[in-house]
């Protein structure tokens, strides 16, 4: 097992230590000072998540207003360390009720120490699953052993839980209504040239599930991906259905998925943990349906005056038709630093100049498909003392969410639930596409 951390520090943005835990003796307690002086107080913060100072490696990550710093002096597994941080944060969030920030840490001081003791031992990551930890590390009061009333709940058997065949699911769960929620969340990363050529494009997607199922159900998920369909057509010895098949790259599954069955039958079958979990992750690089196309034209007039004309053409692919809406669309059009005066005309939504990020921010709350709203803006610059080098023209950035649309075209073909008792289940499936880093050069 790889070493992931010699020490973990939680710092606020000023660099004060909120909580720390030393797992090994090989780093000094004052190493965090080095982090503060060499990383936080320099411009290097945020440029590289891994830095080496004085024989120690610092892995750091910022989550809301907290820096989580992992210090190691040995040759540690970086990916493992970061994964640990991400999982730990998810764990804390589930304990604190969704928020993870400085205040949450201050308020849950004791709990965090308790958790930190549990999730890592001598630098080796341990069980980070909230479901299991919550059984033992509770936020409720502890019942006195001398209390007369015998417990009505069965005492959970931790050893069996952790070492058993289905470590992620407890036996004896009973729900009145058996429900499964399945969300496919995709984020589109795009870099497009000003002429409209796609320079880089990919989709990273997650299949998130929430299960409220009794007993030990066995689930089977069918997607319209290429491998699964081919396999199926082989088995059933009939030609694959015409229609789009999706090629998924880099698929990773939750530990509950039965990989041997996936390898042999190419179906995703699993016994789900109780509650929320991430079933699988994937990436798609080809055949991406771009939800938006942006066509900017920017002209610089003269030395001090610059006119920015941005024409935005949005085309929603016909797969979904004009009935769908994108929500929370934000388009950030960069302007030079010396911008003094702005004026815009927008056909829908509203635009505003934000001096702090040097952008015109154009927001459209509800963006129907197959429409082409435009914005034209004119920007006046102030004259400056120094002859500045010409404006670098950073890319236009976009944020959006399109519900019931997948940029990859991935669909759920079936989701079967099978349990001994043969109860009926209700399955809910949702799709959503978000913007990752959606950038258009101008």
């Amino acid at each position, binding site marked *: 097992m790889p070493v992931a951390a010699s020490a973990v520090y939680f710092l606020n943005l000023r660099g004060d230590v909120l909580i720390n835990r030393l797992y090994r003796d090989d780093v000094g307690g004052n190493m965090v000072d080095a982090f503060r002086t060499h990383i936080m107080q320099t411009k290097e913060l945020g440029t590289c998540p891994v830095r080496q100072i004085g024989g120690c490696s610092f892995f750091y990550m910022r989550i809301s207003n907290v820096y989580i710093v992992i210090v190691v002096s040995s040759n540690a597994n970086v990916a493992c360390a970061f994964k640990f941080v991400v999982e730990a944060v998810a764990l804390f969030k589930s304990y604190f009720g969704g928020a993870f920030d400085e205040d949450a840490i201050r308020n849950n001081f004791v709990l965090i120490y308790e958790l930190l003791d549990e999730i890592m031992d001598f630098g080796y990551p341990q069980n980070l699953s909230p479901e299991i930890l919550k059984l033992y590390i509770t936020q409720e009061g502890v019942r006195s052993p001398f209390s007369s009333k015998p417990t009505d709940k069965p005492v959970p058997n931790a050893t069996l839980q952790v070492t058993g065949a289905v470590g992620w699911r407890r036996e004896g769960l009973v729900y009145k209504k058996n429900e499964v929620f399945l969300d496919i969340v995709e984020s589109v990363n795009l870099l497009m040239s000003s002429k409209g050529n796609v320079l880089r494009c990919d989709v990273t997607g997650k299949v998130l599930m929430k299960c409220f199922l009794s007993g030990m159900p066995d689930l089977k998920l069918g997607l319209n991906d290429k491998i699964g369909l081919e396999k199926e057509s082989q088995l059933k010895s009939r030609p694959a259905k015409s229609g789009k098949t999706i090629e998924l790259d880099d698929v990773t599954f939750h530990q509950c998925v039965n990989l041997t069955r996936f390898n042999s039958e190419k179906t995703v079958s699993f016994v789900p943990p109780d509650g929320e979990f991430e079933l699988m992750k994937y990436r798609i690089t080809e055949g991406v349906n771009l939800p938006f196309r942006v066509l900017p034209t920017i002209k610089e007039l003269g030395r001090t005056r610059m006119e920015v004309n941005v024409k935005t053409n949005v085309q929603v692919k016909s797969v979904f038709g004009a009935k769908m809406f994108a929500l929370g669309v934000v388009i950030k059009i960069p302007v030079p630093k010396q911008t*003094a005066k702005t004026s815009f005309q927008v056909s829908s939504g509203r635009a505003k100049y934000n*001096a702090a990020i*040097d952008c015109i921010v154009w927001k459209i709350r509800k963006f129907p498909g197959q429409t082409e709203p435009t914005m034209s803006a004119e920007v006046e610059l102030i004259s400056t003392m120094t002859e500045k080098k010409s404006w670098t023209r950073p890319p236009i950035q976009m944020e959006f969410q399109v519900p019931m649309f997948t940029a990859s075209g991935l669909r759920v073909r079936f989701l079967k639930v099978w349990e001994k008792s043969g109860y009926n289940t209700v399955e809910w499936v949702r799709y959503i596409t978000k913007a990752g880093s959606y950038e258009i050069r101008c």
Partner: protein
Amino acid sequence: MALSGMRGLSVFISDIRNCQNKEQERLRVDKELGNIRTRFKNEKGLTPYEKKKYVWKMLYIYMLGYDVDFGHMEAVSLISAPKYPEKQVGYIVTSSLLNENHDFLRLAINTVRNDIIGRNETFQCLALTMVGNIGGREFAESLAPDVQKLLISSSCRPLVRKKAALCLLRLFRKNPDVVNVDGWSDRMAQLLDERDLGVLTSSMSLLVALVSNNHEAYWSCLPKCVKTLERLARNQDIPQEYTYYGIPSPWLQVSVCVCTCVFFLLFVKTMRALQYFPTIEDPNTRRSLFEVLQRILMGTDVVKNVNKNNASHAVLFEALALHALLVVYCGSSNPLSDFVETNHRHKTKNIIKAHLDAQKKRILKERTAFKLMSFSASSPFKLLVMHLDAENEMMSQCVALLGKFIAVREPNIRYLGLENMTRMLMVTDVHDIIKRHQAQIITSLKDPDISIRRRALDLLYGMCDVSNAKDIVEELLQYLSTADFAMREELSLKAAILAEKFAPDLSWYVDVILQLIDKAGDFVSDDIWFRVVQFVTNNEDLQPYAAAKAREYLDKPAIHETMVKVSAYLLGEYSHLLARRPGCSPKEIFSAIHEKLPTVSTTTIPILLSTYAKILMHTQPPDPELQKHVWAIFSKYESCIDVEIQQRAIEYFALSSKGAALMDILAEMPKFPERQSALIKKAEVAEVDTAEQSAIKLRAQQHMSNALVVTDQRSSNGTPQSVGQLSLVKIPSMSGDVGSSCVEHTTADQELSQPNGTLATVDPQPPSADLLGDLLGPLAIEGLPGAAVLSEPNAVSGLEGVPIPADDAAAIVPVGKDTNSVQPIGNINERFHALCLKDSGVLYEDPNIQFVKASPRTALILASNILQIGIKAEWRAQHGRLVLFLGNKNTFPLFSVQALILPPVHLKIELSLVPETIPPRAQVQCPLEVMNLHPSRDVAVLDFSYKFGTNMANVKLRLPAVLNKFLQPITVSAEEFFPQWRSLSGPPLKLQEVVRGVRPLSLIDMASIFTSFQLTVCQGLDPNPNNLIASTTFYSESIRPMLCLIRIETDPTDRTQLRMTVASGDPTLTFELMEFIKEQLVGIPTAPHPPAPAPPAAPGAQPNTPAAPVTQPTNPAALSDPGALLAGLL
């Protein structure tokens, strides 16, 4: 501050203060900047209130460290606002956001001027402050007269005049020419009659600056100064608000004293050469001055109050200094004897200068009151010790006083006490007195304040001599184990130097160094142990002892790597001398050393390998077992990744199998040539406070070490020795990087020798970005450090030495007086030729050598700095404008500077006035107008002389105003060329000649040479690819612009000869141009382009008599083209 009305500003500031982190702050600032930009851009314009508010915000943002690159216009426009709050912000922002070279300032000048000459005194104050803060050239030129007027006007309030004086001082410091001397000196004297002490203090500061620039003109102010002092000290005639703890205006008193001192020093210095001593003519003035000083000296006593003490001591020290000067120069005692030693003078000045600099640094750290003290405390002792050698009583009083100081609790005073004592070490007499305080000084080594510890260390280092060396070195060794890490290196270095210098016997020295390495191995630089090795090698009696000692240390369980190195080396060389002793058989020694092998780094392993080889060699008869063992080690390292180790292993292995031959190759190290310890050099480099330490160094030179075993006496007569030799010559164990650093060092140095070997100059520091270099811009100048740096006599190692310029008739090497002559750096000839082609560059550079007589045996060379002459030229037709940049890189001025132009008949040269003195570290520009009357090749000569110290230096330099500067390239087409060429037929208008002995050049190179001489090479006019046609226009006053045509025919088989034809409308021009080109082609010392050597094949294949017809390729077809036509014409 008028913030109360500006809510927006206070909200903004509180927003910023509430920001949790830098990022939030940046966002807020960016937002605000966007807001300000929008407001400033607003067409409707801003109300004055808004403008003021936003400009304040801008200033606040600027002060937070963000870039504010707009809105300067608004700020400047606020200056002209009628109301105070707006004007104020306008002035403040302008003076902080803009610098003196900013274009926007021009807009403000007029408004500022109006404010200055206006009647509103608050506005006057604002304007004066701003002018003083920015103080650019333009301000100085346009505003200085007004400021001067303000200063002397009687209608102004003292407040304004005070500011005017300080503003003028500031302007004067930046541009000394703004105050014209004529008439102003009287005004200045009048100013000193001022009753208001504030104005008087300010004017006194101004006077000090003026006097140090030009003392003679202000001589008349001296009696006034004395009167002022009298008024303050004796009559106590001052208003209540100017007394500080009962002392009447100590600041003014101090500055009066300083001023008077400056007067004396400068005056005395210039007059001394003439054996003339100044006296204050008026005996009354003199008497009253003495009286006042006596009063101050007597009346000062130590009281409890710190502030009062500081103030009174400041005055006291200053008075002491002045008193000392007066006694020496004006008193009746025999001053002549003092002046015999001219060297002293320079020393004084340098030291005072350096002190003032050093004080500035220190002052920043101290409180204001203390400032006074530390400022004044510096110079008096110097002056005292310099000039009151005879007054022993006075000296001991001083030392006693200092002794009291170093015992007090107040750390600042202790610091100063130690520092001053260090300075007093220059005087030999006080040594014994200082030694009385040795115990106290040693206690200071344990002071909690590191700066005091350092001073104490310096002092101990300086006061050490044969009598107390043992104590001090032991003390230092003891202290080493507890000392600060920051100090350990310096400490160990100093201990090593002292041990070497004052060792009563050599074995003690070896003991000390070995102890040193043992205790502070990490901080002992390689130089220290190299020095031990050198010593032991040179002293045969020491060898067994050192080897035995090394053996002892090897037995210790954990020893430092340096110790391993030194022990291994010593035992390798001399272990055979111990052979009889117990535990010292070769085998035992080998195993003792070999034990350490696994613990050492790769730099030490080679030394160990050498040691093994040596042990093997010394083991007679050979011990087969040992041999086998060693060979096994060698063969193990034969495949080592480290090249050094690998090579040694292979070589030793091969050598040791040769048997008896090994004896010759690995014989004992021969003696090292005696040289100055590299350690001392290192210590000097390490010392930051150069001027301070020069005195110590001087002394260090005086006390020749009795431990030095001198193999020859070269080091004592000032002949330079190589610093690098230690690493360059031998010690086989030297690791590679030391060697390379040595080489670097020698390359960095500009070394130069005179044939008689009496002189060498060095530049021991990397080129500094100095004033001269900055001003000359593109010119590459190696800066020399301050004059106070005493550089070591350095070697003529001949490695990278710049070749000595050959005695060349044209470039006259200045004739020096034997020892004190001046040698230019670099080849004058080369520089001249380079400048013939370029328009700017360095014409001349010399090191200015000065000898400081330290003792009869050691003459130290003060390799001070260069006088440098740079040139920048512009040429237009027959006119030329040259600017000579005379740069003085010294820290003291050059006097009697004279420049004389000896123009040839054809040039009319007007040189503007060259200032008599070039101030220290300054550069003077002398414009030079040149007009060309008629063509000639003659060259103008600049006769330049100056004085440094007592020596005159004289240089004669050729000015690069040569023929080609008056040429302008012109391109002619074939249609223009041929009629012209034909019309100029035969001599004297057209001349032809065969030139022999030309440097072989390819045609392309020749063309580029021509281009650099402003001759256009016309391509394609001549069909023969071996020929070259060039054209140019010549401008002169006597004849109209003249077209000149040149044709060169080369012989591809013999590049050393060519035929040249030159034609122009003027016979002299033709002749001169021809000769000029010939000169260039025949004898350019350094070609601007490296000659592409074309191997000359079969010379003389072509008949080259002038009469012979040109051999042209006989191509009948070519007859139709113009080139062939041309060939026919010729």
